[in-house]
């Protein structure tokens, strides 16, 4: 092309804003940080607009993150534990969404897969032999496997009948929800909202973690999330399976033409996505409650996972960090309220972060469109 001519050519001014956009969207990580900062900035403005002191908001988030209560000068590490505990299922459902997204599928069914995992974990807790360690490990594994099948079905429908995974997962969310209520209520001794207590051998509670975090809810589930982040990164970036999935996600046609089985990619990616969501279900069931729950409504971890994966750019590390961010906003809520900041502010911030992330996609499309124009200029006409 005419690169040589560019040196002595002064680009017209309107290109400058465009270049700025291009720089920002060039790096996913940079963009995510910017987006989060913008979200907090908007949150600050809203707090000011309703006549409250935004300093209180940041103090609350500070306390949620470090345990330091700046206003009273007290330190309680329990808050840190709660933050990490709240982040755990968010990270796992974020991984679920992200894994499918990298393979080009929109897994809106993490909620249903989460419910399947949660239900199976509860059943395992109540019915499997109460052997220490082995009991809880089996419960977690079965939950992941069950949810993997639940997700894999969608992948299979996609591969076999080209059924939209979006529609299929949404429908299966409801199936999972009502199925879970029905079978859980059938457990002897269960009433309309809970089952008998789960045995200690099936719980994820870690005494040393509680001790260390001053009695917080932090449990082994957090390590499951950390291991999952690591596994996610390794599979996606380092293995040939991840390579096939990424290629399928970026260009299904080229992947197929090169001999990658796109149908297999769909099934595998949805199954692994389901497994991550199932782990989230198991962690909540066995880590946060000592009885089995008959769900009365959706926990919404699955749907929050969509936002987590979006902000985390569907990379392992990114999802881990973004899960921690969303966990922070959740665990900061009561602290804000006690400082006179409406807790809805955190929802607004997380909502705005998602909106800004989506804007990034829009900006990307704009840049892609500009690029197409320049490609059109370069090669619209066959030479």
């Amino acid at each position: 092309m005419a690169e040589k001519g560019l040196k002595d050519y002064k680009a017209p001014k309107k290109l400058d804003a465009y270049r700025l956009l291009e720089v920002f969207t060039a790096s996913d990580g940079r963009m995510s940080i910017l987006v989060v900062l913008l979200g907090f900035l908007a949150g600050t403005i809203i707090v000011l607009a309703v006549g409250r002191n935004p300093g209180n908001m940041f103090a609350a988030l500070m306390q949620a993150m470090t345990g330091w209560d700046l206003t009273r000068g007290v330190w309680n590490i329990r808050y840190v534990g709660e933050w990490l505990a709240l982040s755990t299922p968010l990270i796992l459902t974020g991984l679920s969404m992200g894994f499918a997204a990298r393979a080009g599928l929109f897994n809106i069914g993490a909620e249903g897969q989460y419910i399947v995992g949660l239900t199976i974990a509860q059943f395992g807790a109540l019915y499997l032999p109460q052997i220490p360690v082995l009991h809880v490990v089996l419960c977690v594994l079965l939950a992941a496997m069950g949810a993997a099948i639940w997700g894999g079905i969608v992948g299979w429908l996609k591969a076999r009948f080209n059924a939209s995974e979006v529609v299929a997962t949404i429908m299966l969310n409801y199936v999972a929800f009502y199925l879970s209520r029905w079978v859980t209520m059938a457990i002897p001794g269960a009433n309309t909202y809970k089952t008998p207590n789960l045995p200690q051998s099936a719980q994820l509670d870690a005494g040393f973690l509680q001790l260390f975090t001053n009695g917080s809810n932090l449990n082994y589930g957090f390590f499951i999330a950390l291991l999952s982040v690591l596994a996610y990164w390794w599979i996606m970036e380092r293995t040939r399976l991840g390579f096939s999935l990424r290629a399928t996600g970026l260009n299904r046609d080229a992947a197929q033409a090169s001999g990658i089985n796109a149908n297999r990619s769909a099934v595998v990616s949805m199954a692994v996505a389901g497994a991550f969501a199932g782990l989230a279900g198991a962690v909540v069931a066995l880590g946060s409650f000592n009885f089995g729950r008959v769900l009365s409504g959706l926990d919404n971890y699955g749907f929050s996972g969509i936002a987590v994966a979006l902000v985390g750019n569907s990379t392992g590390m990114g999802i881990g960090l973004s899960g921690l961010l969303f966990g922070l906003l959740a665990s900061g809520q009561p602290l804000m309220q006690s400082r006179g900041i409406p807790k809805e502010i955190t929802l607004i911030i997380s909502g705005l972060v998602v909106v800004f992330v989506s804007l990034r996609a829009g900006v990307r499309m704009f840049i892609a469109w500009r690029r197409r124009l320049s490609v059109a200029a370069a090669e619209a006409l066959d030479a």
Partner: protein
Amino acid sequence: METYAVDMIDISKAFPGILANDKVRLSVRSGEVHAVLGENGAGKSTLMSVLYGLYEADSGTIRIRGADVTIRNPNDAVAQGIGMVFQHFKLVHDYTVAQNIILGMEPRTRFGHIDLKSAERRVTELSSRYGLIVDPKARIEDLGVGAQQRVEILKTLYREADILILDEPSAVLTPQEVDELMAVIRRLKAEGKTVILITHKLREIKAVADRCTVLRRGKTVATVDVASTGEDELAALMVGRAVNFTVDKKPGTPGKPVLEIRGLTVKGSRGHEAVKDLSLSVCAGEIVGLAGVDGNGQSELVRALAGIDKPSAGSVFLNGSDITRTSVRERTELGLAHVPEDRHKHGLVLGMRLDENLALKTFYKAPLSKKSGALDFKAIAAKAERLIKQFDLRAGKGPASKAEDLSGGNQQKAIIARELDLSPDLLIVSQPTRGLDVGAIEYIHRRIVAERDKGRAVLLVSFELDEVMALCDRIAAISRGAIIGELQGDEADERLVGAMMAGMKGEDYKKAAAAGKEARRG
């Protein structure tokens, strides 16, 4: 100072990273056929888009018939009497010719209904005046490509354009249709129209153009009188150096058949039989060219041969073993390489790195993968380094460059590198040089011939008759999904292959040609 029909002065237009037009000057005399010649990326389409109001120039002046004008959109251009016929037609397939032509400026009856009768009358009138034969009541979907192009030209004439821009008009036509088009262009000129012909085909310029403006890398190189300029001079102006058009190749020594296609039938996307009972074989050490106009089943055939789509009947043999039901990967392992027609859709994963793209077909096994299922990134990068060197790939960040950041020629070279590195027994190449500049074309042609000389079987699918004629040892013409006839490379002549591409049996054509000679003699 002379008053030009179109005078574009110092037009500059930049796109991100590319200065597509750099103070380009184009002066078209009234009533002439003016060719705009340039390689892909030279900026000719950008220049025409500026003239037609699709892009606004960053700087420069446009004068139409001596008056400065501002053209912000195609409506402004039409108001100035400028009409443009695009390479990809913009017609509504369910509508008739007349309906398409009046679309957007329908004549009305007194009662506000569309006055189709008068429209059809006017279309008939125009078509007889300019020799653009087409039935105004025919539906577009029933028309051939040549006729559709005539409709597009009529559309501009209906809008009373007297400056017509034809964008690569011959790209989609058979040689016979090209001749008809040349006649139409002459007729347009005779009727006083000004024609701007965008092309890279020197022969057409010599045939109809009065003057020619050559663009190279976004700049005007020269404007010359066609009559006093030779084809080789035009080519040298276009490329910036002397060009060797002929491909150096020794006669081939075909061995045993490598690819055998027997009675293959493939359904197209609309459920019709895109390939019908097709049989063809390709031997070791020969290049067989599949000549045909776009859309005659070539794409479907190649996809079925590559294993992407399943044929509905017939079988395919590679080195004597039946591969009809095997997967793409199994075929790769058995020695089939495939350079797809659409490099962006099927050839590359644009969002991945160059080294990943080069590994796309072999990443799953040693040496690129370890037993554990993990990829060996060192081996992948080493392979990329080797191919970059071997195939002279130009990539800014080496193996780490994103595929989408490579130029078109380098993208194509990357695919060719990946496929040839498989050391295939059979190489299927589809449209290997579409949209590439002359340097890249020469290189790719040399590589294809080198593969043949190594004793490999090559099936070349191309819509460019010149390419097929230059490279192939044997030419098979495809029309409506069937092989119309086969010719040895040395007995192929452009007329003959053209007639076969249009669906005429070779023997019939020879007879017809002989009869014609007879008649003329008598």
